[in-house]
């Protein structure tokens, strides 16, 4: 009987498959049946709208060229912005999928492995109940960090410069560069670039704790000389007025160690910053000189690790619109990016097991050997 065609076809082929389909696919589908699925239009929150308008302010020419001109009338303008924003989300998602960002970045924070301390609240089902998660973007591999709480964590300038050439902002990054989202310079994103940035800013914009920052611990170590990328960026055509790397005066943040500084903890964090990390005026001056296209400025005494970009065309713009209107997290320009591993000196740092460090040391020795 077990060797007969009928049983192989019907029992194994159809019945067992159906059984698995029901239990593994239909059951979850039924369980979430009552969670409404949001459309892209419904995903446009104030947080996201703020970021979208911020794109328009920071990249006015590009925005107008690719998105069009918003109507003058206030109500019409509101509607227009919402529509454009939703449309950008869709296009941005398509780009995100087409470039396989999801093969290097996950979009879910697991309840294990300290992930909620690194990235923020553990992911929940309702967060995925929307049009942009069809098919869901859980991801397959984390070469880069999880992005499900990326929105609001970096400025649009940072995102633009980073997508244009990740090594500008993250020393030795293995992320590919995407100059084809730009028209030759990081301050000239094309439609795909603008849409992708909207999409990135959307990730996590639905959370109360948005924008979610990792706690930031200042580096107490003098870092090595100004990164060569500064010079390299100068070669990029037209990168002159806008461009890339950063404000060297901003101290590098600790990319991973420590506690979530959600809004409640923000005050705390701020104090710490103030005590040991505020850039001095002199450093800020030095930073302004370090615009690519001119000679890189001598490294300021702080930490020259380019951690946060300030590529906005004018200084005033960069400063005027950094805080999302509805979430006055004071440290929203706080750099979050790359730190040399050695910079993890903060007192809040959870006791790291000795094993990984040893492993890492072995690994880096090995690497030097290679």
């Amino acid at each position, binding site marked *: 009987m077990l*060797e007969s*065609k009928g049983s*192989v*076809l019907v029992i*194994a*082929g159809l019945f*067992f*498959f159906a*059984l*698995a389909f029901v*239990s*593994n*696919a239909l*059951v*979850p*589908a039924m*369980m979430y049946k009552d*969670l409404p*699925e949001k459309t892209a239009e419904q995903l446009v929150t104030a947080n996201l709208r703020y970021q979208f308008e911020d794109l328009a302010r920071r990249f006015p020419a590009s925005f107008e060229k690719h998105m069009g001109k918003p109507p003058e009338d206030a109500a019409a303008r509101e509607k227009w912005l919402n529509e454009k924003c939703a449309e950008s989300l869709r296009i941005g*998602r*398509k*780009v995100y*999928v*087409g*470039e396989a*960002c999801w*093969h290097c970045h996950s979009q*879910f924070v*697991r309840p294990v*492995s*300290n992930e909620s301390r*690194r990235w923020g609240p553990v*992911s929940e*089902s309702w*967060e*995925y*109940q929307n049009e942009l*998660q*069809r*098919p*869901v973007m859980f991801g397959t*591999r984390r*070469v880069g*960090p999880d992005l499900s709480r990326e929105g609001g964590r970096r400025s649009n300038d940072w995102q633009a410069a980073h997508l244009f050439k990740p090594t500008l902002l993250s020393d*030795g990054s*293995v992320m*590919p*560069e*995407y100059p084809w989202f730009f028209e030759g310079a990081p301050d000239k994103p094309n439609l795909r670039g603008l849409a992708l940035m909207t999409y990135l800013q959307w990730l996590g914009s639905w959370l109360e704790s948005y924008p979610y920052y990792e706690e930031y611990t200042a580096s107490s170590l003098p870092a090595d000389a100004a990164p060569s990328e500064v010079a390299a960026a100068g070669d990029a055509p037209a990168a002159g007025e806008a461009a890339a790397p950063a404000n060297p005066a901003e101290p590098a943040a600790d*990319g*991973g160690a420590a506690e979530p500084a959600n809004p409640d903890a923000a005050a705390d964090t701020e104090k710490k910053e103030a005590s040991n990390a505020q850039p001095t005026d002199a450093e800020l001056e030095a930073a302004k000189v370090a615009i690519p296209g001119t000679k890189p400025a001598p490294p300021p005494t702080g930490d020259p690790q380019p951690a946060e970009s300030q590529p906005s065309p004018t200084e005033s713009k960069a400063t005027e619109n950094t805080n999302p209107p509805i979430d006055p997290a004071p440290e929203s320009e706080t750099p979050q990016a790359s*730190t040399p*591993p050695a910079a993890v000196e903060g007192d809040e740092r959870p006791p*790291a*097991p000795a094993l*990984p*460090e040893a492993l*890492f040391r072995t*690994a880096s020795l090995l*690497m030097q050997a290679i």
Partner: protein
Amino acid sequence: MSAQTLQPQVVDTDKLVDRKLVLYFYLASLTFLFVSMLGGFLMALQLIRHNPFSGIELFSPGRWRMIHTNAVAYGFLANGLLGSMFWAVPRLTLRPVLSSHLSWFIFIAWQAVVLATAGGILFGQAQGLEWGETPTWIDPVALLGLALVVVNFLPPILMTPGPLYVTLWYFMAALVWTFLTYAMGNFMPEYFVTGSAAGAVGGLFIHDLVGLFVTPIGWGLMYYFVPILLKKPIWSHGLSLVGFWGLAFFYPLQGIHHFLYTPIPMFLQYGAVISTIAVELVVATVIINFFGTLRGSGSAFITNLPIRWFYTGMVFYFLTCLQCAFQTTLTFQAIIHFTDWVVGHAHLVMFGVFGLWIQGVMTYLMPRLLGHEWYSRKLCEWHFWLSSISLFAMAVDLIAGGLVQGTVWRALLPWEVSIDASMPFWVVRVFTGIGMFAGQIVFYVNIYRTWQLGLRPAPAAAPTSTELPAVVAAT
């Protein structure tokens, strides 16, 4: 089986098989493997910061990573398995497939689907579904192609009187499963469900693609070729039954183990974990069965090349499943999910098991398809050793790398630390990749030379395969 041995008239099995078609499937398979490896290299080089084509849109490493996996699944494995089925099914059932025109149409259509997939991905049209990156507009065409495959292969199998031989159970079930899996995986998460539920379907899809398409056809081929080559029946028919029915029942239940700790309901995750461990036991019985078959002819492992490919693949299969039994537990998942451990696992199973089996079958069939003995046995040896050793080194390297990555992440060290810590493993990966690639080059040279020899006007009598399926059926 007895039905086949009792077949009254003698059928010339060589006439049943369209050798040219099988050969073409194999050549397509090897071509896509070549392309796929180039894609793998591009991503691997990107990860060690040596991407030679940085900043060129059509060489976007992400896109090539998707081409890498899709070319492996739909180009290399699917073509290799289909070609082998076009050899095995007619010989086993003593009947031709439904239509040879249809067979050729399937061949051409399938290559068109794979090429369109690659092209679509290359131009940024990918669908956001792992292993299903085929752009959405190609999906219905691909499904139609799969339906034609079913229509072509089922008639000879269904016309065989009496109970079927093991291979045909696997083939028959796989034909149905593949069609259903493809339909489910490509349409449901795209059009019908969203969010976590789509994740569950996606997990089921990637899992079923390996477990209900590649695995059963692969094992079916093993049940066909191993007895032929060893000239004796499979050790235990009972274990064959356990293996098939165990796989059929437990395998499809595990999809969600790809997404542990996601918002997918926890009881479903536990279910997937338990059935995963159950299937490892089933796998053990299959492996025991095959090693039981080998017992007494152990020297074939050394002297007989295809047997060596097959059994090495089975050893890797055992290792993969052992690894899987670990990685499916929530304890291990916490560390290894999203790391290179999984990538190591994927290479071990895709190339180490099914890749080796297909190449073993090719090693056996190529002389029969090209009408001449292998040009060089030595090159065959090189092909084997380069492929298997490099693959094994790559898998070990990536699995170890995954453990390091997972531990660094958990320790909340800055992200860059995990990159730096991975670097040595990524460098080793490139070199092992070069080894695998070199194995393929050797293989191509050997095939080309053999083909040239086969073209000569009056060579020594071309080897005709003398084994009749009766040998197999004698179980």
